[in-house]
């Protein structure tokens, strides 16, 4: 059997035309080799948005989906254009991608690697999606990235923070705009030093799975470089809901900083529990006890309520940023949906635009051409200052935000305030940094 997984859609159109002309069904055997998977030959191009629609991250997924819909509107020249107006590359003109109208299909990752791969496959095989994007956990991102590499389509990662996504598990067809655990550490460390001094004893609680470990490793390295001492690191089960038995030992450990390497429901609960145990009012070694949540998100902050006040952490982006790009995006998003976008929405929106722009510049939907256009592409006007898509590992390098839970929020969205914008230079690292070692990008796969 020959390898004939070629563009169905293309053949479909031609055969439909042929069938109409001959008025008898014509049987085509797909031998005419197209160059790559799902080459869009009609007037439209289909993107695949793979986000959690069910399960605990459904709300985050819903926000991602809103951003995607907005991005599609802007690409097709509807709405106010959003960041297209501020984007440094002017290749896109609001007439779709390379003149083709952008359409999309959605899938539900359920925040499970299996389900995410299944829905991505369905979008590729059934709906002819040329690019897959989205997701809100690193496990899913790595799994789907692997799939896209095999299938020969581009994967534009959504929210994924683990070092592995562009480290050990990086793939030639996968690109990440979101920042990572190393960058969180590098951005947070100087701020923490300014705020809390260089003589601190840190206690880590870490979600017991890959992302948690890479974050713990990164934060530990960054803070130890400041002179902090790591008193202890404890792994907590993913399924844990009550963290009291992990918080209690912190009280008498001699530590004066608690680092919570948790995300989602875990983070909401562990932070709530930590505050319950009076850690924030506690004094140890003559210093105020502090809690740090290295990866912050507004949706999580909302879940934790009052407890986030004064707690520091890092995010990829925040809607209160005052640069033109951010303002334009918040304006379009807020006008359409009535509330400001989350960082997940931002990264997804930007990823879609970046992909479209790369196609436009490359002049081809071929994944290899797109990848080439994205590699070492430097741009601005997307909300994080001057940004570089590094070719060696497909990671974006840009400014990282250090934020703090706001003491006096003026609205239900106004939960975090930006403490510092850590410049890109400070969070950069060589591609062969030991925390990212072990994987190979491989070569780009156009499929077919």
């Amino acid at each position, binding site marked *: 059997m020959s390898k004939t997984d070629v563009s169905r859609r293309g053949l479909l159109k031609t055969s439909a035309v042929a069938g109409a002309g001959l008025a008898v069904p014509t049987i085509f055997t797909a031998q005419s080799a197209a160059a790559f998977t799902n080459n869009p030959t009609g007037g439209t191009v289909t993107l695949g948005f793979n986000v959690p629609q069910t399960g605990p991250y459904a709300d985050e997924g819903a926000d991602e989906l809103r951003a995607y819909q907005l991005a599609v509107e802007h690409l097709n020249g509807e709405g106010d254009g959003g960041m297209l107006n501020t984007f440094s590359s002017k290749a896109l003109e609001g007439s779709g991608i390379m003149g083709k109208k952008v359409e999309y299909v959605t899938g539900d990752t359920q925040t499970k690697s299996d389900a995410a791969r299944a829905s991505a496959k369905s979008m590729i095989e059934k709906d002819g999606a040329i690019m897959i994007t989205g997701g809100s956990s690193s496990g899913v991102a790595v799994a789907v990235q692997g799939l896209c590499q095999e299938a020969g389509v581009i994967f534009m990662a959504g929210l994924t923070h683990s070092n592995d996504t562009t480290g050990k598990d990086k793939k030639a067809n996968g690109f990440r705009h979101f920042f990572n655990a190393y960058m969180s550490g590098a951005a947070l460390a100087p701020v923490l030093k300014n705020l809390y001094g260089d003589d601190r004893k840190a206690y880590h609680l870490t979600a017991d799975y890959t992302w948690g470990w890479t974050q713990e490793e990164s934060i530990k390295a960054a803070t130890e470089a400041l002179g902090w001492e790591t008193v202890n690191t404890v792994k907590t089960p993913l399924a844990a*809901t*009550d963290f009291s038995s992990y918080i209690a030992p912190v009280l008498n450990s001699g530590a004066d900083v608690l680092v919570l390497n948790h995300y989602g429901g875990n983070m909401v609960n562990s932070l709530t529990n930590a505050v*319950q145990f009076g850690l924030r009012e506690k004094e140890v070694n003559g210093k105020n006890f502090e809690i740090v949540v290295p990866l912050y998100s507004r949706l999580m902050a909302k879940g*934790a309520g009052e407890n986030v006040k004064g707690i520091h952490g890092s995010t990829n982006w925040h809607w209160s940023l005052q640069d033109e790009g951010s303002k334009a995006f918040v304006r379009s998003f807020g006008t359409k949906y009535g509330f400001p976008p989350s960082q997940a929405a931002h990264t997804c929106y930007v990823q879609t635009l970046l992909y479209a722009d790369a196609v436009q510049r490359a002049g081809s939907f071929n994944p290899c051409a797109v990848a080439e256009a994205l590699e070492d592409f430097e741009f601005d006007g997307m909300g994080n200052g001057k940004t570089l898509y590094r070719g060696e590992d497909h990671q974006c390098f840009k400014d990282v935000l250090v934020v703090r839970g706001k003491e006096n929020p*003026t609205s239900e969205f106004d939960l975090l305030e930006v403490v510092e914008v850590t410049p890109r230079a400070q969070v950069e690292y060589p591609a062969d940094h030991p925390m990212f070692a072990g994987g190979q990008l491989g070569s780009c796969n156009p499929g077919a």
Partner: protein
Amino acid sequence: MDAFLLQILNGLDKGSAYALIALGLTLIFGTLGVVNFAHGALFMIGAFCAVTLQKIFSLSFETVDPEKTDFLGNPLKVKTPYVESWFGPEFGGAIIDWSVPLAILFAIPIMVAVGFIMERGLIKHFYKRPHADQILVTFGLAIVLQEVIKYFYGANPIPTPAPDTLNGVANLGAVIGMDLIYPVWRIVYFCFACLIIGAVFAFLQFTTFGMVVRAGMADRETVGLLGINIDRRFTIMFGIAAAVAGLAGVMYTPINSPNYHMGMDFLVLSFVVVVVGGMGSLPGAVLAGFVLGVLESFASMEWAISLIPGINQIIIYLVAIIILLVRPRGLMGRKGVMED
């Protein structure tokens, strides 16, 4: 030493939640002979009673503050809860602040009603069906309830803090000259659980109603022969069990922000608790709840993890397996319950 005492407290606190859920589960099983996989969902509905009441109290009208602007640069709409405008900011604010304890009153009628509807509408038809069918239909119900809650409240956890005065920590060790700091609300939760457990036992022990129910648990047919309408009493017991689970949920909300899948999180655990305690034994369920809570806390201590890596992940299941193999009827199970 302190560390151990603290973990015992933590264990008792976790155990309170387990015990309350398991108590209701056992009441239903003991009286109606039904294995209710939707019991975790009742716990979750209880928690969302608190969320709902908080939302009701926080219902607000909007006034435009021209001085300030919102994120789009439009004039900021300031929300003022109705209760604050009616009762003044101080008293109104206090009402919102105390919405979780107040939700107890709100939740009792709702939970009892939910219990009645569940029993009369669904469970009733499953008394004579095999246990597997009961498990399956209540499992389906649990999925439905959780999806309904998710539809209305979203997937994100919703913060429901305890009243400010109960939000701090207390030094329990002060009396014995030790430093034993513990969150006030968790102490409240433990006391509340003891109170409820005591009330249920007292109710079964000292009221005629309770005596009939106990007799019915021991031998349903005989009691039926006495001409007592045991079914109606059992329906009421189902309502009580639902209320117990619901109250456990209401009071749990400040400890962890409630979300739609908290019921499923607790379901497996509470079944393990019931089985370890012994199917059908009320004291067994309570005892097992506390024992498993304490064991779980101990297993999360460092020495335990360094001894057996991953023990904190599996302790509950491990205990369940061992108990079931060594003492098939659980800690305090009666003979002949669910043995075929």
